[in-house]
């Protein structure tokens, strides 16, 4: 290899059982016909898996990408909040220049999506999508509106706790992660099969942001902090020849 890859692992740690939710989770009905029944086959981590795309130029569109409250002429309704944190790997190393994509419901719990039939109002001042690249310290930051809870058809009286969807590309195909960020103290946690699909309570806590007085802006917006941890380097050497 001719170029420095000092901050780019050549293998990734295999994740322990239970790090992620099981694909078969009966409480979440949509998993029933969609989870593979055959066992997964262990894939060696070759050059295909330890590399990944650089999507910054393709995806960053304008000055308000990371400010979801300024993407329309009028301001959105709801509680303005700042959501920020770092993207790290399991060794604590920040991941710089990695794309963070978010999408969410508006303050009333309605998504700007043709399939969302929940009769809460759409907000002409809010699309609900944002993007940013992490800085050299792995930091990201969005200004947005606190999303509302909303009902869904999974079971009788089913409500999703308020959440923001996050998509992380990481440095490598092996690090790709899509997840949801929840807000502290949500009374709906106990009833949500998606949140509870993560069986380890400590792991569930890792999906909940924390209120941060330090990052809140006086007379403007309260802030929530959330660090996202992607897979770290593996102990084993690269499994393929370079």
């Amino acid at each position: 290899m001719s170029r420095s890859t000092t901050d780019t692992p050549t293998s990734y740690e295999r994740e322990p059982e239970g790090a992620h939710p099981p694909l078969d989770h009966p409480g979440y009905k949509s998993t029933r016909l969609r989870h593979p029944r055959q066992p997964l086959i262990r894939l060696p981590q070759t050059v295909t898996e330890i590399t990944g795309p650089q999507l910054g130029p393709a995806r960053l569109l304008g000055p308000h990408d990371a400010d979801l409250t300024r993407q329309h002429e009028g301001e959105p309704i709801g509680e303005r909040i700042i959501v920020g944190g770092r993207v790290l790997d399991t060794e604590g190393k920040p991941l710089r220049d990695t794309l963070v994509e978010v999408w969410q419901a508006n303050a009333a719990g309605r998504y700007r999506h043709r399939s969302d039939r929940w009769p809460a109002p759409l907000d002409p001042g809010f699309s609900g999508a944002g993007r940013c690249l992490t800085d050299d310290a792995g930091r990201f930051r969005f200004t947005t509106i606190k999303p509302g809870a909303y009902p869904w058809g999974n079971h009788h009286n089913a409500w999703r706790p308020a959440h923001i969807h996050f998509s992380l590309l990481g440095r490598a195909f092996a690090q790709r992660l899509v997840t949801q960020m929840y807000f502290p103290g949500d009374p709906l946690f106990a009833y949500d099969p998606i949140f509870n699909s993560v069986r380890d309570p400590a792991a569930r806590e890792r999906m909940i942001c924390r209120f941060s007085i330090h990052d809140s802006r006086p007379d403007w917006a309260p802030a929530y902090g959330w660090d996202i941890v992607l897979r770290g380097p593996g102990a084993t050497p690269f499994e393929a020849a370079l």
Partner: protein
Amino acid sequence: MIFATTPSQTVGPYFAIGLPWEAGPHAVPPGTPGAIRIAGVVCDGAGQPVPDNLIETWQADPAGRFADLHGHGGPSALEGFRGFARSGFEVGDGSWGIVTVKPGAVPGPGGAAQAPHIAVSVFARGLLHRCVTRIYFADEEAANAADPVLASVPADRRATLLAQPTDDGYRFDIRLQGPGETVFFAV
């Protein structure tokens, strides 16, 4: 390990607000010589299409070079080669599709060459974690026969990883569950 990873959650039914974009399905710019379309249908365990599927692909260029941060293998000679494509629709019908070029061979375990392949992530409502598979090409018989990853797959399931030639590229269907279930990998 100092920190534990953030758990995965489903992409949900409304990802089209934030993830697909106009050029997303194009791993190469329009007009790239040798561009092909790879497309198919994603089905569930009842054989029904999965309209809210989101498919991402990652691959080398025809010379085995990657457009990652470090330009693995050296800079691609293909102008604008991205190697990544994302297919997803606000209101879909179960189909997916990308425009790309056929990748070249890249090194595999122990230095053995891998047959041309594309890494695939499958997301959807009802998938709490992505499913990872690979696209191989049915018309690469010799390379496929020597591929170490294909060799690790039971022979009677290998065909689920083979894209079949069409008029403008290849067809690759993804069956999440049931008869003909696509082979999925743990990365």
